[in-house]
């Protein structure tokens, strides 16, 4: 792959470049007016189908009873539409433990992801807008730590937390969730671009304190980046499985992910009741909030990702 950029204004064969032809002729590489391609759409459509089929399967099978799951075709509806019954069964099974798990998950997401975002915003702002000794070292350490596997940390963290008596409490899940190295990096890149230094200088000359400047001047400008980081930390905490699996033994503190897995495992335990229809309906209820959040906030995560994409 040659890294030459085509900046020489000569055509390949050395003749001066031909004049642009009139419209209507096929121009293979017109960036201003690309031609729509059915073939390319169909090919990309294959990836689209691949991405959506499991979700469609989930939505369709959430409408089936436990018996219907076994004797109907997977990608089509069963005779009776049992979705509403399934939802109410899911929410009431085992004294409404699903609702409890949902509230636990919300607690972990609000405190964990909210806190993680707040710390990442403060830290990223510091890295982007202030000179201080040890700055490069800080980032090298944070990035280096990302490469350490979660399990390398999990065992010692578990042992540390059990010494402190934190295991089996929400804190055991929330405290490790507070650190998002990716969020820190994203906020650093974003703040470097979004906040003009002149504005900070002006605020300082006006005698505003650093904190006041941060909250009144910088924070509003960081809003799109903040929403992006919040979305990604939300997904990370909402989808977290390994950490709670280790830290939490008491089903009363399970997040949804652990709860669903416990329901699924129930079928293979001796004397356990198979409740696949509830696992499927519960899975659907688990992903809906995130899908909706992503759809509603897409403007933000797209611009945030664009800012976080690596620039020259």
């Amino acid at each position, binding site marked *: 792959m040659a890294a030459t950029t085509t900046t020489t204004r000569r*055509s*390949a064969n050395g003749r001066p470049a*031909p004049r642009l032809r009139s419209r209507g002729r096929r121009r293979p590489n017109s960036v201003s007016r690309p031609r729509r391609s059915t073939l*390319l759409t169909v090919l990309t459509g294959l*990836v689209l189908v691949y991405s959506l089929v499991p979700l469609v399967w989930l939505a369709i099978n959430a409408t089936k009873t436990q018996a219907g799951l076994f004797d109907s075709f*997977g990608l089509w509806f069963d005779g009776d539409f049992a979705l509403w019954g399934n939802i109410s069964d899911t929410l009431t099974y085992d004294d409404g433990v699903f609702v409890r798990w949902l509230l636990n998950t919300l607690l972990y997401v609000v405190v964990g992801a909210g806190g993680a975002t707040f710390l990442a915003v403060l830290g990223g702002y510091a890295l982007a807008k202030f*000179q201080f000794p040890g700055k490069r070292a800080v980032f090298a350490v944070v990035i280096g730590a990302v490469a350490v*596997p979660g399990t390398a940390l999990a065992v010692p963290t578990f042992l540390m937390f059990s010494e402190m008596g934190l295991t089996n409490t929400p804190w055991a899940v929330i405290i490790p969730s507070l650190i998002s190295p990716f969020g820190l990096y994203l906020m650093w890149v974003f703040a470097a671009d979004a906040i003009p230094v002149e504005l900070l200088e002006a605020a300082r000359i006006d005698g505003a304190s650093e904190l006041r400047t941060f909250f009144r001047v910088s924070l509003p400008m960081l809003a799109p980046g903040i929403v992006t980081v919040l979305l990604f930390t939300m997904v990370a905490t909402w989808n977290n499985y390994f950490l709670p699996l280790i830290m939490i033994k008491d089903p009363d503190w399970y997040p949804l992910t652990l709860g669903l*897995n416990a329901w699924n495992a129930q079928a293979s335990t001796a004397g356990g009741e198979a409740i696949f229809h509830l696992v499927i309906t519960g899975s659907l209820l688990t992903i809906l909030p995130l899908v909706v959040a992503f759809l509603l906030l897409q403007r933000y995560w797209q611009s945030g990702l664009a800012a976080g*994409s690596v620039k020259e």
Partner: protein
Amino acid sequence: MTTLSPPSVAGRPAAPPPKASRSRRSWVGWGFLAPFMIVFVVVFLAPIAYSIYLSLFREQMVGGTSFVGLENYQRAFEDPKFWEALGRVTLFLLIQVPIMLGIALLVALAIDSGRLYGKNFFRIAIFMPYAVPAVVATLMWGFIYGNRFGLVGNINDTFGISLPNPLSPDLVLASIGNIVTWEFVGYNMLIFYAALRVIPHSLYEAAEIDGAGQLRVITAIKLPAIRGALVIATIFSIIGSFQLFNEPSILQNLAPNAITTYFTPNLFTYSLSFSGQQHNYAATVAILMGLLTMVIAYVVQLRGMRKEA
């Protein structure tokens, strides 16, 4: 270009502020960074240090804890289970990562080319699986793989054939690869797409005047421009492969015979620590994996960032 320092830090350092304010400013910077760093020390640095400490000791029923130096490491190097797990994730990443990133790159280029009908829909729909928790994704695919009420079973019944069982010991790694690919293809696509969007338009116009075709534009302009994004995505995918845990752990319920307790290094450390109470050995395996991951991530970055002649 480096992946670790934004332009404001690397490229042109800002004019040094007057001396009086510099010392004050440095404290302010640390003040903003302190909350992150304090928690970071608690949940990252302290456990890493503790892990290293654990790996140098051995707990015995009789005689308590004793310092054993590198004995645990020696044990890991001679442990066939460790090598089997490591070999399995290595095979996984050699096959799964190129496939996933290749599809992601092709889709990103297709969407960026502006030649698709309804490109916004494509972008959002293909990204959607990223919002699905690994647990749900694995349960879903696990059911689909199943031959009782899954799609595989349906196809077998409908056509009277018998497809190979995706949950059999021979195929389960490929089935896990498919789940991971499904989860992250859209996420990587979006990273590539975001990088493609910031390429200056003037380059394309110049290429057009030069009469460069689509392929030439991709190889000469687009790919070099998003090299940084490609390297970062590769590093994250490699780290993810080495840390493979959720999918095989959840599939264990559906395929108990296919997935052993040492299927991946992470499953191995997990079962050592939480079923076997062998915390010292588990910490050792975890540290070895951490070191290996760091070395490989570093090598990929060096190779990827090298300007090719």
